[in-house]
């Protein structure tokens, strides 16, 4: 069992506040991903959970035991570092054995655990190698193996894929997903890559500027982003945000015309932000069609998808997923139509989601 509770966690370095009160409730066996742009505090939060840095204020509990003052090695947590941090003077076997020996386990138990982990991670033929004799992917597996042999209650991974080349990344990602299924411990994974976050997580913590913007399943984050930050951070190409004026059921975009919809969120706010993903838009070359007017900037052909980038009248750039057959020259005038059900509404002042 490893349920984790973070309440009001703050971190300051000297006078700079890095985390401004984080509250999270993480269930046992969950795969949690912290995602956010660099500098958002996600790695700092991970180091606080590991115990490598001190918590400035707030309380962190594992299974109702306060952890704030507990040494990192006594928290039942293992961590995989971004640079892997293998001990360069020890071979693969020793790297894995080091920690479990310090836990005071019996020799037979140690051997059995290393054997198990090295089979699972295909490290058998590498046990006598030094870290410098391994490739990046192999080092990564050793780092994971070293964490797993300790049978931790919680496994932390700090940007584990960032030092691997693109081809290896998706392999290792699948591997990590498989390992979590097989071992089933609580896992926290830090990344700045939303694709990693979406594919691996049970629930995602989206962070920005030392605060949690939203905590939810990948589907929730994609379908019901809590604010404009989450809306644009999750999904690729990113969601376009349009500043519109409401009058009745009509939404007007400066310099681009307007759109009349059957239903709008309640509330009297005149100024709204609407978010539209590439899928929610269709492109029409017919100038008389209803919708927002704009002109083509360029077309991105990706084989399975074609994205057309269109500059609307107010200067906003939107991407539209289009038909492969479409052939648009730059500067061609087009009309963008929006699927009403796929519009996300946000308040212009608070940038928060408005209930539809």
């Amino acid at each position: 069992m490893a349920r984790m509770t973070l309440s009001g966690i703050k971190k300051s370095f000297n006078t700079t506040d890095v985390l401004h009160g984080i509250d999270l409730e993480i269930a046992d066996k969950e795969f949690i991903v912290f995602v956010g742009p660099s500098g958002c505090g996600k790695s700092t939060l991970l180091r606080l959970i590991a115990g490598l840095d001190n918590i400035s204020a707030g309380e962190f509990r594992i299974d109702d035991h306060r952890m704030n003052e507990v040494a990192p090695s006594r928290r039942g947590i293992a961590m995989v570092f971004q640079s892997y941090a293998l001990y360069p003077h020890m071979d693969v076997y020793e790297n894995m054995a080091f920690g479990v020996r310090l836990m005071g386990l019996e020799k037979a138990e140690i051997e059995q655990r290393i054997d198990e982990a090295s089979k699972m991670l295909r490290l058998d033929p590498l046990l006598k190698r030094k870290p410098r004799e391994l490739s990046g992917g192999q080092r990564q597996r050793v780092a994971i193996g070293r964490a797993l042999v300790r049978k931790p209650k919680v496994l932390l991974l700090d940007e584990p894929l960032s030092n691997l080349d693109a081809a290896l990344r998706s392999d290792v990602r699948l591997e990590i997903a498989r390992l979590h299924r097989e071992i089933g411990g609580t896992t926290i994974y830090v990344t700045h890559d939303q694709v990693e976050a979406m594919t691996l997580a049970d629930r995602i913590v989206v962070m920005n500027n030392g605060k949690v913007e939203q905590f939810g399943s990948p589907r929730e984050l994609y379908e019901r982003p809590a604010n404009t930050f989450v809306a644009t951070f999750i999904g690729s190409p990113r969601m376009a945000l349009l500043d519109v004026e409401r009058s009745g059921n009509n939404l007007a975009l400066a310099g681009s015309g307007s759109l009349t919809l059957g239903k709008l969120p309640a509330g009297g706010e005149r100024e709204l932000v609407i978010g539209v993903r590439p899928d929610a838009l269709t492109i029409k070359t017919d100038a008389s069609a209803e919708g927002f007017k704009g002109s083509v900037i360029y077309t991105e052909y990706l084989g399975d998808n074609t994205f057309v980038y269109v500059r609307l009248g107010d200067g906003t750039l939107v991407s539209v997923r289009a038909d492969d057959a479409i052939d648009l020259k730059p500067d061609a005038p087009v009309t963008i139509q929006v699927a009403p059900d796929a519009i996300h509404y946000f308040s212009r002042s608070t940038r928060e989601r408005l209930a539809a």
Partner: protein
Amino acid sequence: MARRLWITALIVPPLAFVALFVVYPIISAFAYAFFQWHGLARGEFVGFANFYKVLFTQPYADWTVNAFTHNVLVFFALMVLQNGIGFLLAYCVWRELPGAAFHRIAVFLPVVLSTIIVGFLFKLFLHPLFGVVNISLRGTGLGWLAQPWLGQGSTALWSLIIANAWHMVGFPTLVFLAGMQRIPGEILDAVRMETESEWVKISKVVWPLVAPSATVVFTLLFVGSFNWFELPYIMAGVDGSPHKSTDVLGLYFYRTAFGDQSGSGQDFGAGSALAVLIFVFIAVFAGFITFRLRKREIQI
């Protein structure tokens, strides 16, 4: 072509300098050791007689053993005091214990001082009547500990060793600190995830990873200990007083070759033989140490 000329012009003068003032004297000392000498006048070729004399005939044999034993003691004592404390200081500075910024500089300052000054200062400190050491001891009620530190055989050599350790401790500190700073921070974090024992961190991870810097520190200490001359010469005099209790190979060789304070007993042949023996001993062992320690070096 101009480039070659440049390189030649830059290499030749220092090479000539080294040849004239280093290589030539070493080779001449080898040659001198095989001749009999009357003052500075060369006599007849005597083969290994000079070597036989300093190693196996009295009183030379006893003096040789006495001086050599002291060098060995100095080497091991400095290994613990100078390198051991240097390592601990480096660790404290590296982990940024309180006062680290001050100590990073303070520890290294004495290294810059000339040995003459350090020797003279410690002679003053250790003066039996007016020295700050004995005065402090008396002032704090520890008067029974006050000693004529440099005037008795039981404390003289250790006083020199401590003076030397104080003087040079900054050097191993600096080298070890540089070695520690090469260790990536995440490796240290990884150890912290596995143990809270400082001893395990130091002995199992930090020490093995700074071992490459230890090679140079150990080798230089070895060479320095067996070439030890200036500090004992300044603090104890050329006779290794009192009663040869601070005699080391450097002083002994100097006395034998050039005569003691009374100017008597000069034997250039025996002196050269000693110089050759010291040189060969240091070269062989230093080579061995370097070779053995190199094998343990680790690429980070």
